[in-house]
């Protein structure tokens, strides 16, 4: 039997789980600088700003024009993590948004209407709402609404969904053609002529960042893992989206990689004694980010990989932007190399590789009400991982943005029960099926269903 650590509200000891090195300070600096640039844009009209979505962003193109991206998603998550999302959500519901609409949108729209920003700095009205919706239909609505409420021109960068094993040449051509249209629009907005070399440079920066980011992610394959690929990854994701195509981003990731590699060399993990390794699927419950982290920490469970950290781009399996063919590279990235535009079965495969290659004990699926792109069908995913692969899987439901959907006691109960079971298996060397492909054999056998 496994001894359970003291827990509950105000529990005395909480295992230290957060790594705070230079990364943290640099990240803060970069994000502050980004918000400052946005404020500058709001106050002076320069630099120009364009609204963009994180997943499959063509931020390289913006960078080549010196245009600063506004990410409404970052806005929304910042509100949630600071416990400021409920008020704008309620305001949006008052405007007519349904309780079943994505709360990311509601928080962002509500905050815009209430003129609230998470940092208190001013937000510019974008010169263009550039909707690179990559697979998420809600994004199209979100940007239509932003365009309507802010009276901003909208460009729908139509991205064909990944419905074939690899992108079709027609898909790539279609996107490249649209990118050229956007170039023209950006030329108008900025009054600058498009410079292919600057574009290539931005793409080259992305390539370098991607290389380092991938290596960082691979570091979590070490036992113990030097960082938490779900909670800590969020820290690295800010600069990844805002400064990927910029030398500042390259600098940041050089430091990050070095620091984390040093931790690996010292055999330093997230916990003094790592007990469980899990893969987490789904976005975090931002309004309860800290509580959720504590629940896992109390079991010394580290997430070694997460799908959420591939929303922006999926690089750990090899894709890099190519400065020789910058337009095609951006198109490919939008089509194939980010989580949102990939179909469910491709996501199953990604998670399966995580569990195996990152040596995880189990999988946690976090269903978020707001995001049907992520969540619709996660029950089937659970079925695949438990019954077909024999991987112990925990299924939780809450939300990414709306604090009303997080039942703290209930979620804690489930998390505790899951690790109690995993712990029992560790202690007795028994039962809960092991995470390896062979598990599909014997353990799947006793998973027959009475139907």
């Amino acid at each position: 039997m496994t001894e359970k650590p003291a827990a509950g509200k105000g529990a005395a000891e909480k295992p230290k789980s957060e790594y705070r090195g230079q990364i943290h300070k640099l990240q803060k600096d970069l994000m502050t600088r980004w918000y400052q640039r946005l404020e500058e844009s709001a106050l002076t009209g320069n630099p120009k700003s364009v609204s963009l979505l994180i997943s499959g962003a063509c931020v390289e193109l913006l960078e080549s024009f010196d245009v600063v991206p506004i990410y409404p998603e970052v806005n929304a998550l910042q509100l949630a993590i600071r416990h400021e999302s409920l008020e704008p959500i309620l305001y949006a519901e008052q405007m007519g948004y349904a309780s079943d609409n994505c709360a990311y949108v509601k928080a962002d729209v509500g905050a815009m209407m209430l003129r609230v920003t998470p940092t208190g700095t001013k937000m510019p009205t974008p010169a263009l709402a550039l909707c690179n919706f990559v697979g998420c239909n809600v994004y199209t609505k979100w940007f239509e609404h932003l365009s309507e409420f802010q009276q901003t021109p909208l460009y729908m960068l139509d991205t064909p969904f990944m419905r074939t094993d690899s992108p079709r040449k027609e898909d790539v051509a279609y996107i490249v053609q649209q990118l050229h249209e956007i170039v023209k629009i950006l030329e108008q907005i900025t009054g600058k002529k498009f410079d292919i070399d600057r574009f290539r440079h931005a793409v080259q920066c992305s390539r370098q960042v991607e290389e380092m980011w991938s290596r960082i992610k691979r570091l979590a394959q070490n036992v113990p893992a030097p960082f938490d690929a779900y909670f800590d990854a969020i820290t690295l994701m800010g600069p990844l989206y805002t400064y990927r195509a910029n030398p500042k981003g390259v600098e940041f990731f050089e430091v990050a990689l070095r620091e984390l590699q040093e931790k690996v060399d010292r055999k330093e993990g997230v916990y003094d004694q790592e007990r469980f390794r899990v893969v987490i699927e789904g976005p975090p419950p931002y309004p309860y980010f800290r509580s959720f982290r504590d629940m896992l920490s109390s079991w010394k469970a580290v997430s070694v990989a997460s799908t959420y950290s591939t929303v922006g781009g999926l690089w750990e399996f090899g894709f890099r932007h190519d400065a020789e063919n910058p337009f095609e590279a951006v198109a490919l990235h939008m089509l194939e190399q980010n989580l949102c535009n990939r179909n469910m079965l491709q996501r199953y495969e990604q998670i399966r590789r995580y569990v195996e290659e990152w040596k995880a004990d189990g999988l946690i699926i976090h269903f978020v009400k707001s995001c049907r792109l992520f969540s619709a069908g996660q029950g089937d995913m659970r079925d695949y991982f438990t019954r077909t692969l024999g991987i112990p899987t925990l299924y939780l439901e809450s939300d990414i943005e709306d604090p009303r959907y997080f039942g703290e006691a209930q979620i804690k109960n489930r998390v505790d029960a899951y690790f109690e079971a995993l712990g029992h298996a560790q202690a007795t060397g028994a039962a809960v099926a092991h995470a390896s492909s062979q598990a599909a054999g014997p353990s799947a056998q006793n998973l027959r269903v009475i139907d």
Partner: protein
Amino acid sequence: MTLATIDSTFERCTEIIGDLNFPEVRRWKDEHPGGKAVAHFPVYAPVELIHACGILPVTLNGAGDRLDIQHADARFGSFICSIVKTTLEMGMTDHLAIIDGMLFSTICDSARNLCYVLKRNYPHMYLDFMHLPHNPMPGSGVVPFLAAEYKRIQDELEKLSGKKATDEGLRKSIALYNENRSLLRDLYALRAEKPEVLRTSELYALMRAGNFMPVETHNLWLVEALGELRGRTGKPRDSIRVVVEGSFCEQPPLDLIRIIEDAGCYVVDDDFIVGRRWFTEDVPETGDPLTALADSYVNRSVYSSVRHDARKPRQKELVKKVHARNARAVIMLIAKFCEPALFDYVLFKRELEAQGIPHLLLEFEEKAFTFERLRTEVETFVESLLFE
């Protein structure tokens, strides 16, 4: 087949749409040994393509209240609309055994994920996802892209049926569906003009029955029905003329439509099963058929919550529809958890309020069968417009 009276037609249609065993699909398969049926959701699918490959297109409408969900909840969970769950439930209870393939498109995230959940569980079924474009701008290269996408689908369908679709065959299919859409347009015009002659529940049943039968048969039924209806009379009632908007995908139960009518509404336009009436005018029957279909999708189609078209803001289109049909109010009839419709409601609401057009928002589930709450809301709405 001959139909004695229009009423028996409606009765037969109600039976067909209530039968999860797809009797007309079975009949077609009996008559066409080895024939395949490919299903799609009710919004839009290139049925002409399916038809030209010798396959019977079937529009799925979920299972309504005729099937209890006992398996699909475990796969899709909370906050997902009924049609996604009942479709999966139909699969898991062998009700889709008669269907050989399913074609999904960019309707919404839930419906798309359903495609892949089905694919994992039914690896031998033909399941495909089609990207219907959202950027109609001339410089985007959208028509060639869509024509190529249709070609890809055509190749897959030909593999399934073992029959090649010729350009001539495609044009023939286009003509058949042009006729179907034109007949439906006539019925819609008739209802708007004389709502006392054609009840919406009747029109709806007649249209929806077409989801489950060959278009050739449906065309016959429609011609016959139109002929009989032109001779039908009815006593005008004191009802308000409303446009119903929002149930383009998951379909409201027939009883709910009756309740709206009984509460004192003449529905003079709607977007029920809008995929059957997708094009505002005929698809050209000359030239390259795939280009004709693609160009029609991009440039000659109805507005819809599941398709972005910057040239035609939906809220403006709805107001135009209200005026064109001389309607007094709008009922937003939205399936629970239907994100595209619920998002659009915000913009519809703003525009309707700006235009002074009263509206009522109702949420329904296709699997519901008691409607007391909704009845009260519709009646109140009518009373608020009728009572002094």
